[in-house]
């Protein structure tokens, strides 16, 4: 029997500031966290969230995740006493790259000063599963624990994996999310070289003038719990994760399928899993990267899934406000989608001004808008697609 999964805690560190409430308030207000063409988490101070020893042993991508996990667990009421035995709690944290700052720094040391001078912390800092391990260790989570690696779908894939873990009864709760700290010389140059990032340094998804994404960093974490266990301890559900669909394009290493094949199948799979009809979806949190190819193929995919109704569903992209957080994007967007559903609001795609030919959906230009209630708790999907052809779609429902 499949168990229902509720969300009882949310945490986020993003270019809009530290904290999930800051993220939704500022995005809904149309604020931007992008400066000089990058979405940095300038307000984040590791020492505010962890001991010096923990901070020193962690790459920035792990530090960001530890801070977001702290917030999510506090909201779930776990700060003092965990409600479950540690062996019953899992932890799955995605990342696109892992500790790339560590790799770059240590490579310089290797070349300039030799092997003897390298840090013994290089491996534990750089490994992409370090964030999952650090959170598990800090909070004594001793169930299944790993990192997902599927480029910009990794954060969403971690949430799907954790959802399944709780549905199957393999864990009573699971900490899930994604994290990324890839604003480093090598990663910035590498994305630039492949032509993925905006030369103008502007994130304007779906707009005719879009010319690539803006790199961002941050982390988003959710506490998922078995609904019955959460009810027993009187936890307040912030929403439910009701559907997960994941596919591959098997088309091209970086370009999405032009007809949105894999993306459309992932959306359909998530809706089937949620037992939700396309007509019931009140909001779409788009992948919306601001690249010419993604925004076009995602629009095509949405039309395939929602048919005649596609044009009347609000579709907006958080990347317009904070840039593309790569492996953290899907998780931060899931946090934002859950909060948007709770407040029954569709936050805007900021910077969207000039329509592009064929891109004619309702991208929520200008300012936030209330969500229509279709006779039930509002349901939303959140799309995440990654280089390599990974497509992950999550379906969320507002708390009753």
């Amino acid at each position: 029997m499949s168990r229902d999964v509720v969300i009882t805690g949310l945490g986020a560190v993003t270019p809009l500031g530290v904290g999930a409430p800051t993220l939704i308030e500022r995005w809904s207000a149309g604020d931007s966290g992008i400066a000089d063409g990058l979405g940095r988490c300038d307000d984040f101070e590791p020492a505010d969230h962890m001991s010096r020893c923990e901070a020193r042993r962690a790459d920035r991508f792990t530090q960001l995740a530890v801070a977001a996990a702290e917030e999510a667990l506090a909201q779930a009421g776990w700060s003092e006493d965990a409600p479950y035995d540690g062996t019953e709690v899992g932890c799955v944290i995605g990342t696109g790259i892992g500790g790339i700052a560590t790799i770059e720094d240590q490579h310089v040391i290797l070349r300039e000063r030799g092997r003897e001078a390298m840090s013994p912390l290089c491996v534990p800092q750089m490994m992409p599963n370090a964030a999952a391990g650090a959170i598990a260790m800090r909070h004594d989570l001793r169930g299944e624990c790993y990192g997902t690696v599927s480029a910009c779908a990794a954060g969403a894939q971690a949430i799907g994996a954790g959802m399944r873990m709780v549905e199957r009864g393999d864990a009573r709760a699971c900490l899930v999310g994604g994290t990324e700290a890839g604003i480093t010389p090598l990663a910035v140059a590498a994305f630039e070289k492949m032509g993925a990032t905006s030369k103008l340094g502007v994130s304007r998804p779906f707009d005719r003038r879009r010319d690539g994404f803006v790199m961002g960093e941050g982390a988003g974490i959710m506490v998922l719990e078995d609904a019955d266990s959460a009810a027993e301890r009187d936890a307040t559900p912030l929403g439910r994760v009701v559907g997960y669909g994941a596919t591959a394009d098997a088309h091209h290493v970086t370009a999405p399928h032009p007809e949105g094949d894999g993306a459309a199948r992932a959306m359909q799979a998530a809706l089937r899993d949620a037992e939700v009809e396309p007509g019931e979806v009140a909001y779409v949190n788009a992948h919306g990267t601001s690249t010419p190819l993604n925004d076009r193929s995602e629009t095509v995919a949405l039309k395939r899934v929602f048919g005649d109704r596609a044009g009347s569903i609000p579709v907006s992209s958080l990347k317009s406000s904070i840039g593309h957080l790569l492996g953290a994007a899907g998780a931060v967007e899931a946090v934002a989608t859950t909060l948007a559903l709770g407040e029954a609001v569709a936050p805007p795609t900021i910077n969207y001004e000039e329509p592009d030919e064929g891109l004619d959906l309702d991208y929520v230009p200008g300012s936030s808008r209330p969500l229509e209630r279709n006779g039930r708790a509002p349901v939303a999907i959140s799309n995440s697609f990654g280089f390599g052809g990974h497509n992950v779609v999550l379906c969320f429902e507002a708390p009753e």
Partner: protein
Amino acid sequence: MPETKSKEQIEQRVTDALVEFGEERENITPSARFEDLEVDSLDLVELAQIVEEEYGVEIKDSDLEHVQTVGDVVEMIAQRSS
């Protein structure tokens, strides 16, 4: 050649390094055991690097196997740098 340091100076430097690693200064005494300070093998490798760089004293992994207290490390450095 690095200049010869007194034991007090070496102890001070080792203490500073351990504080940098995240230890509380008041807990760091010559008799404090690394196990109790939660200083592990990764920290000791870094400490050995600092010592080598600043005092020109080479500490091998095998040397660290027998080191148990802050005083042990200070003593080892003092002997080898004199």
